[in-house]
């Protein structure tokens, strides 16, 4: 793997005309209990890692050395060593972990325990759960502010975004949003957090200072019935100018002007698109399409879907190495 990587790196150096860096992309496949590994220059599958049962939430450590995967049906978080693509150890996540977020320092993992109405905080150094925070029914989405001050958890049946102060682990605000909130995503400047509501069909933009909803984004697509418009994944570019929202069974990703909150375009991707991730250089956006068993690659500069790649069964989450 290391050699393969070096080779790819050298390839990258050789082709200096194409400035795209080579990143490693990790896709969790909910149905067949695997993680697919891809290379972001060739978009070829380079490895398939067997993991625990029902892998969903997935993230990479800031140094790229570890991949964390929530394996909900095994009630744990598995940690993959990216040098060997083998599972190195597990973390005490609490029951049925679904999604999590790493704090900016890379020291704490905040896990949503969907079955237990809890958010569990794991100290990655000691590999222990240090605190459990009671939240609403069916906690799901986890977002951390880039300054590390807040973690926002969404609870799917309570329909709230819970603001957790990361110093005290106390909930400091509960913001009512629309039905089945799935993802909380902060702007890079900490000013706003965007919360998608899958059944409500909206994205609420919450002002972080006042903890109030300032905008509600809705989506209308010609020829697609409103019930099929189910916003899940949200990603905002670092400059805070453009946001992408995955619309589930509408099979489209909405492109939103993140300053005017207007929907500019809908990009047709695979079926039941849920999660999104940029490559660190923001040249590409990767979407996981659960029903069509593939991922779509969006060229961020042109907003064109440039290709789709078959992965495992029911691709769910996506994470990209930082380098």
């Amino acid at each position, binding site marked *: 793997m290391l050699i393969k990587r070096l080779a790819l790196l050298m390839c990258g150096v050789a082709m200096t005309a194409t400035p795209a860096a080579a990143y490693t992309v990790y896709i969790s496949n909910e149905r067949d209990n695997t993680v697919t590994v891809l290379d972001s220059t060739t978009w070829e599958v380079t490895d398939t890692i067997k993991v625990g049962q029902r892998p969903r939430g997935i993230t990479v450590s800031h140094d790229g050395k570890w991949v964390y995967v929530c394996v909900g049906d095994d009630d744990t978080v598995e940690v993959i060593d990216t040098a060997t693509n083998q599972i190195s150890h597990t973390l005490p996540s609490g029951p049925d972990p679904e999604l999590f977020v790493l704090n900016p320092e890379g020291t704490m993992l905040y896990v949503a325990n969907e079955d237990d109405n809890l958010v569990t905080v794991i100290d990655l150094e000691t590999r222990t759960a240090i605190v459990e925070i009671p939240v609403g029914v069916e906690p799901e989405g986890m977002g951390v502010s880039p300054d590390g001050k807040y973690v926002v958890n969404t609870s799917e049946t309570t329909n709230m975004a819970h603001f957790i102060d990361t110093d005290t682990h106390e909930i400091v605000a509960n913001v009512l949003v629309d039905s089945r909130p799935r993802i909380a995503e902060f702007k890079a400047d900490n000013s706003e957090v965007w919360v998608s509501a899958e059944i409500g069909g909206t994205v609420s933009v919450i002002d972080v200072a006042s903890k109030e909803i300032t905008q509600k984004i809705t989506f209308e697509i010609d020829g697609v*019935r409103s019930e099929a418009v189910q916003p899940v994944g949200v990603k905002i570019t670092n400059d805070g100018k453009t946001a992408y929202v995955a619309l589930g069974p509408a099979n489209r990703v909405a492109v939103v002007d993140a300053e005017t909150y207007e929907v500019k375009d809908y990009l047709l991707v695979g079926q039941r698109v849920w999660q999104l991730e940029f490559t660190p250089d923001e040249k590409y956006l990767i979407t996981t399409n659960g029903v069509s068993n593939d991922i779509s690659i969006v060229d961020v500069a042109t907003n064109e879907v440039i290709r789709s790649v078959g992965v495992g069964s029911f691709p769910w989450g996506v994470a990209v190495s930082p380098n």
Partner: protein
Amino acid sequence: MGANGEGKLPIRMSSTGSGRRILHRICGISLAVVAAALLAAANTAPAAAQTAAPAAPVVNDVTPANPDFQQIRIGYVEWKEKSLTLSLSQNPPDDLGVAGALSAIRDNNTTGTFTKQEFHLLVEPAKTLEEALAARQKLIDQGVVAIITDVPADAVLALADADADKAGILFNISAKDERLREEDCRANVFHIQPSHSMLADALAQYLVWKKWPRWFLLTGALPADQEWAEALKRAAGRFGGQIVEERVYSETDTARRTDSGHVQVQRQMPVFTQNAPAHDVVLVADDSEIFGTYVPFRTWDPRPVAGSAGLIPTTWTPNHEQWAGFQMQNRFGVLNTRPMQSLDINAWTAVRMVGDAATKAQSNELAKIREAMLDERFSVAAFKGEKLTIRKWNHQLRQPILLADGFSVVSVSPQEGFLHPNSLLDTMGYDEPETKCSF
């Protein structure tokens, strides 16, 4: 991976344990379920309603756990004349429906810890119309904002008409009768239970999608069975199915248990179904539980069975796990020792609708809750993969229908290819242009 996970388990357990201890230290005040302490905590950190998970709710206990919260009471009229099923394992448990309502009370109360609302369930039994009316009055005297009714159609109407200005909220969670949504509709009745026509259309769409269009219909002799059969015949006409023959099973009563057991049934059912025209599927319309369960594997011709047996259209099955249904099954399982059934999810959905409406209205007043529930944007999420909304023309809950075989969810209707200008869910049941309902 299993072995790996198990190996780590003790470490996880102890660290989770220490995690709990830390948690208690951090928010010890709010975790102590003492009203005064809660108030004190609220004063120091107004937005931090970080209380412990609410206790398992109990029927008819209206003692506030948090006296400073808005108190919201929901009533439930439970028909005590339970009909037995042919299948021993399908016989209704004593708390059927009520257990679903209680489960939703707990979910509402978890949300309530953040919105400062607290919900209670009051249950009154009834066996007759008179008892049902008395139960209603008793519940209203105790200040309920809505009443869930698990009662037959006539009792639903009597309860609805006892509310002179029709400004209350009744949830029909069991009666499938079409007339309650059509000529006998009432503005104060909200139907969580799908009607016969919705269930028939859901099944018909799937059979047509499978290209199994020729149906041999076996109908029970009681009025409910006849209505169910009518709905299936209507569905055939709507979606391109064909009833090749209808045969009526004339028995109107049966002993559920006899010592001769399978011997007679094994001989009767083939005879009952022999010499039928060519067909793809045997449809059974037997709401009354007289013979339906005995049809699969006993027909003259080897054919799949659907309707009241075999592939059954329903709102829930213990095997439903998509769209967070798994989490619902688990939450129900924590509170109960039996699997969740369709009447349970119907009751759960009704209580959650009150919960969501009360949250949105930020009120415990009936008029405001009702207004929020009838708002154009109101919807409820109930593990069906899309929002459930209320049909404005007859107050029927719009919903996908599960098709279940007892072991898995075979499919969920509406099916691909059946189109509708407004909502695909309105391909099931009587649509707005056809309705006889006017409030």
